[in-house]
């Protein structure tokens, strides 16, 4: 299997450069659902955490609102109103979440939605644990800028986590499990003091092999993350902007 053959996401949704924005507007119901699942996979955690922290909703209400939001996206065809020239998808979705929560409040609705309606496993318990581990204090998110910042950070976390998952699959497919373990040890869990030499001793390989393995893994991670990102953007320009945000290139 060559690098080009690998399509993260497996057989559920082939990763191409076709934007999910286009796919979600498709007349083909199956394609639309698959696109929504892709969007949901990337955004449900940021949306859930946003509702929990910024709208200060208890876990069960936040779960219900998160599922309801993605269903409403599809049912009300909200993507038809999205214009990638005017805003980023991420910002548009956040504003839609705000409207959705406010409307639900006004209507006094609280309907229990089926967890399987989206065909995407929403691990709310895991998301709750993550919230506990997040250093973000809800009291520190009062301004619109910090709301956007919080949503962006969680979106990047979600995007990177999906890319790490894809990288794991890629490593498994290429019998490069050790490479993934090295990447995990150094880049995902590594303490400040961990060194290539320590890893070389631990895995019984040369420092050059550690260097090469990590360089490969980082390159693939970057490629996969950008491919996923490209898929989630409505235009090339939005992709460039979001790539800058995700990889912190504008940070001075």
């Amino acid at each position, binding site marked *: 299997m060559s690098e080009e053959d690998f399509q993260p996401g497996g057989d559920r949704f082939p990763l191409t450069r076709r934007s999910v924005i286009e796919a979600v507007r498709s007349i083909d119901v199956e394609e639309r659902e698959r696109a929504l699942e892709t969007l949901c996979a990337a955004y449900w955690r940021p949306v859930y955490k946003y509702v929990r922290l910024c709208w200060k909703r208890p876990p069960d209400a936040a779960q219900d609102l998160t599922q309801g939001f993605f269903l409403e996206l599809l049912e009300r065809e909200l993507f038809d109103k999205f214009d990638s020239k005017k805003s980023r998808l991420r910002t548009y979705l956040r504003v839609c979440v705000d409207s959705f929560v406010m409307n639900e409040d006004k209507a006094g609705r609280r309907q229990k939605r089926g967890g399987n309606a989206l065909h995407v496993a929403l*691990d709310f318990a*895991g998301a709750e*644990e*993550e919230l506990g*581990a*997040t*250093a973000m204090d809800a009291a520190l998110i009062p301004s619109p800028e910090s709301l956007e910042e919080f949503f962006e*950070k969680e979106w*990047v*976390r979600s995007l*990177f*986590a*999906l890319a*790490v*998952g894809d990288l794991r699959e890629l490593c498994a497919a290429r019998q490069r499990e050790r490479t993934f373990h090295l990447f995990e040890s*150094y*880049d*995902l*869990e*590594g303490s400040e003091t961990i060194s290539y030499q320590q890893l070389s001793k631990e895995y019984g390989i040369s420092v050059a092999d550690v260097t*090469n393995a*990590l*360089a*490969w893994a*980082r*390159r693939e*991670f*970057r*490629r996969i*993350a*950008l491919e996923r*990102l*490209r898929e989630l953007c409505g235009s090339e*320009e939005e*992709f*460039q902007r979001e*790539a*800058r945000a995700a*990889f*912190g*290139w*504008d*940070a*001075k």
Partner: protein
Amino acid sequence: MKFLSDKALERLRDGAETPDLAGTRYRLLERIARGGMGVVYTAEDENLQRRVALKVLNVPGTDGDLANRLTREARVLAALEHPGIVPVHDVGTLADGRVFYTMKFVVGKPLDKFIESVASVPDRLRVFLRICDAVAFAHARGVLHRDLKPANIMVGPFGEVLVMDWGLAKILREEVSRNRSEADPEATVFEKPKQANIASDATDISAVTGHGTVMGTPGYMSPEQARGEVEHLDARSDIFSLGRLLRFLLTGKPEVASIPGGRRLDKSLAAICAKSTAAAPAERYPNVQEMALDVSRYLDGLAVGAHRESIFEKAGRFYRRYRFFILLIAAYLAMRVLILLFMHR
């Protein structure tokens, strides 16, 4: 799905950004700066065993057209051979598709740090004139800098002034390679774009820093650049930045008209700053040479084109310029008067 801590996110960003130089002649040393268009590292050229600055352009993906355009841009910049412009040594593409180029590694101080040790206005103006030389040279070759600011000017240990970071540069026309090959028959001749490409070159580069995309530094970029009117930028946009740079050299801030301590800026210098930073490009200096000429005239004690002097200002300037002779004549006359008075006693 594995939870990624904030620290893991940072590591992933850093790791994904670190260039993989396998297969090149460079060995990465350390990251030294980050700009709007890329990250600069120091690297060792293992063939020539010298330290170079290696800039990786932050354009994601492996779009071949984009990589080609950026490569061509680096080639154009490489052909800007001037003592005030950091020379580009090499250009290439990383395994992940990002374009990098290597430049001379400059040891020196950025302008904002340098002027802390230079108090005299004439010395600061002389540094400014050398910046103008480099920018005027680039303009003559059809290249706009678009990000002139103190951090992008380096002053070397022997007083050499270098304009850095041409990452946002806009190529107005691709004459460099042609001029270069005419001037030096042994020079490497870069592939010249076809006629159609020459005409569309400005828009080609604009695809990287596209129309409507604001790139530059607030405080130094021209109003038209701040509005994202990339296609309408010309030399006068850089002149605006030079005006702000001049004001920074004189006052310590790009937008302040008074010198620290509350003194007003000299009227002629204030007029040069005002003319070069006029909101409408048509009201600015038409080219860098004219701006530099006004600064030179000020240094020589002559009237500057940007300011119409009153009779008192003319007299004051005449006095400052010929102070020595005026004082000498005054002393001579005073002595004659004293002698006459003494003889009449």
